[in-house]
């Protein structure tokens, strides 16, 4: 029976590749949006505007304090009640963007806060504007602190894309879930799914380890 199911699994392997493609698509789009929003929020959070800081702080606390599944349900089930209808795919991207940018915001804020006051003062007394100070002096130095946890966060985000399968996005985990109904070999099907995830995220883990070693001086 095992061999029969294995042959079936090989037969429908293209289906898995389609799921892998969808997972990569969601992962790639959300990594880019999360990084952009996360950096913007992180700069606000380590900035001087108290009101904006508080608002970002509440947002970050909400996202970090609740499970991602609950956030997906909130986006997917509650927004329609308020008149915002979203398909599963954009809803998944929105949930990923909300979740990921909060975590990246914390990493960026931590990195910027690690730069000493003197650097800010030196930049200000050289006559640089705030944007110039951040772009030319602060962020380049903070990158050293930001980069290793950022890549680690990317790995977590890629793995979290599996959770969007709950709202029916046909990505890798969902493909496995649909397949296991037809091919009742859970170990085999989900080993394959796991192996495909491993292929995407393990290189990033290696990069993250490398960066951690290189930057930790």
């Amino acid at each position, binding site marked *: 029976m095992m061999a029969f199911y294995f042959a079936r699994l090989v037969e429908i392997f293209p289906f898995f590749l389609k799921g892998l493609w969808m997972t990569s698509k969601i992962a790639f789009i959300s990594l880019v949006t999360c990084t952009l929003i996360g950096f913007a929020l992180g700069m606000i959070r380590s900035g001087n505007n108290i009101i904006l800081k508080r608002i970002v702080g509440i947002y970050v*606390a909400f996202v970090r304090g609740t499970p991602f599944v*609950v956030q997906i349900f*909130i986006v997917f*089930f509650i927004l329609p009640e308020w008149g915002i209808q979203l398909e599963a795919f954009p809803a998944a991207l929105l949930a990923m963007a909300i979740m990921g940018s909060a975590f990246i915001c914390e990493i960026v804020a931590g990195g910027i806060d690690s730069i000493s006051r003197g650097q800010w003062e030196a930049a200000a007394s050289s006559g640089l504007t705030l944007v110039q100070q951040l772009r030319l002096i602060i962020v380049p130095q903070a990158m050293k602190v930001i980069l290793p946890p950022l890549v680690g966060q990317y790995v977590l985000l890629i793995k*979290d894309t*599996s959770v969007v399968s709950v709202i029916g996005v046909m990505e890798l985990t969902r493909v496995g879930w649909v397949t296991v109904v037809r091919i009742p070999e*859970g*170990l085999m099907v*989900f080993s394959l799914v*796991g192996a495909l995830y491993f292929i995407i995220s393990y290189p990033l883990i290696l990069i993250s380890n490398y960066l951690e070693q290189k930057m930790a001086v």
Partner: protein
Amino acid sequence: MLIDFNFRIILEYLPLFLTGLRSTFFISIVSIALALTTGIIACACRISGVRIIKYPAIAYIEVIRSTPLLVQIYFLYFGLPTLGLMIPEIQTGILALMLNSGAYIAEIIRAGINSVDEGQLEAGISSGLNYIQRMRFIILPQALGVTIPPLLGQAIVLVKDSALLSLISVMELTRCGQTMTSERFMPAEAFFTVAFFYMCIYFVLKAVADWSQRKLIFREAY
């Protein structure tokens, strides 16, 4: 929007949410205890020089860290019955959480041990202590302080991860929200209540984690 937020229905469903909360507590505490044990064992194997236990430990840690928890849960949930193991969903869920967090905890402990200065180890060797004594008197007491804040961070992650068990129909907090949604079609009330309870757990654990971090820095300053 939030104008017609119905508090009465939340009150009506409060007993259900409280059972869910209790279940989440139970799952989290049991999983953390088991994960800590797994993590310590995995870390001991990982840092030992014996190849036959070192490489399986590395494989375990790396495989767990590079696959999503949801896939691990489904792997056990759909996989164990094919092996003839019929166990209740909640035990499958706890097993998945244990294996998942165990790998992360192993890495946290390893990082703590590595953070102890090389000179300490050499001083231990030249004082004539053997491996066990060096670990017990020199490395572990110093490593412990460094590992506690990230371990509490892992506990926060685990509580949030336990929400995924709702997908294999374990009756915990998130599942209660789903139940209420399907019975009353009030997702806003249901999921904001669920989120509120998770936030409460998060803030308590975060306060403890921050406190332990401050203590640690305080001690290092001397």
